[in-house]
């Protein structure tokens, strides 16, 4: 199946449909084993001022070299700030993928669709592979596609909440209506929820908090990797029809001790 189910973003062929993050780990040394256990090949990072007192651990040394780096623009409150962060991230020399995150609401960390689309347009023109984080709204998704996004990343629930696929119906519509890959980002709290997103036809899932804050992040990474694969395979297999009344799975004829032919 892996040979025919091709997943490509920005010209890069990926064999895993699970993207992971590097935030919130109690111990960053777990990042590499999580990558290995989960099979993930794409990982997010954030860009921040270096700690002048020299106390910051370098997260890069924990990220396996084969991973595709997906820096985010967290901290950006408008398109201009997102563009500035994206250009700085690219200048470090770890590729040209960027997850646009434009947020000015600090309570629910919901993305600003208009500013996100503006930043997407500027950065796509500059050759970035742009993956915008967004509220699952069809019109915003269309404007992001027009702006040159490589994929669309709708939220399942607010960032870091582990509340699951609360926006399932809206994500279903995006999957149905959009040609771009739909990567469910934010809110996924359990492997079953990632599996559900994949069964619906999502192209991939991005999971950070649910893995990083698990009691055993490596085992949870393994579980998410398997759930995403299972969900993808179920989508490819084409689920059978849903019925209201029971549909017997065993023949309804030829029972013991019955008189045949009376219908």
């Amino acid at each position, binding site marked *: 199946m892996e040979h025919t189910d091709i997943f490509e973003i920005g010209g890069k062929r990926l064999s895993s449909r699970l993207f992971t*993050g590097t*935030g919130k780990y109690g111990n960053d040394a777990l990042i590499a084993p999580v990558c290995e256990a989960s099979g993930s090949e794409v990982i*997010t990072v954030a860009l921040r*001022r270096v700690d002048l007192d020299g106390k910051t651990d370098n997260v890069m040394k924990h990220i396996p070299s084969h991973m595709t780096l997906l820096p985010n623009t967290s901290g950006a409150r408008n398109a201009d700030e997102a563009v500035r962060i994206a250009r700085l991230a690219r200048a*470090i020399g770890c590729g040209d993928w960027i997850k646009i995150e434009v947020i000015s609401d600090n309570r629910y960390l919901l993305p600003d669709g208009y500013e996100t689309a503006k930043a997407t347009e500027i950065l796509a023109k500059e050759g970035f592979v742009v993956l915008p984080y967004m509220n699952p709204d069809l019109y915003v998704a269309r404007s992001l596609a027009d702006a040159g996004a490589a994929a669309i990343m709708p939220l399942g629930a607010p960032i870091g909440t582990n509340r699951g696929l609360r926006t399932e119906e809206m994500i279903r519509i995006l999957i149905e209506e959009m040609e771009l890959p739909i990567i469910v980002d934010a809110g996924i709290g359990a492997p079953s929820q990632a599996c559900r997103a994949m069964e619906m036809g999502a192209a991939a899932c991005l999971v950070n908090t649910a893995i990083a804050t698990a009691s055993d992040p490596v085992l949870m990474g393994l579980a998410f990797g398997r759930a995403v694969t299972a969900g993808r395979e179920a989508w490819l297999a084409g689920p059978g029809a849903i019925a209201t009344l029971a549909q017997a799975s065993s023949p309804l004829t030829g029972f013991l001790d019955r008189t045949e032919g009376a219908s």
Partner: protein
Amino acid sequence: MHITVNGRTQDMESGQTLHGLILSMNLDPSVVVAELNQSIVPGDKFASTSLYDGDRLELLSFVGGG
């Protein structure tokens, strides 16, 4: 001379290069990105970039994030 690094004013000898400053702060130049007076300085230009009184420098690096 004085330059502002990440919002903090610092006193330093004149003639210092960006590369020298980064090393003096015990930072690995290969994982740092610099923005000098709002312009990005590529890593291969750190050594040839001199700092001047009043410069405003931002030094950033990747950290954990989702």
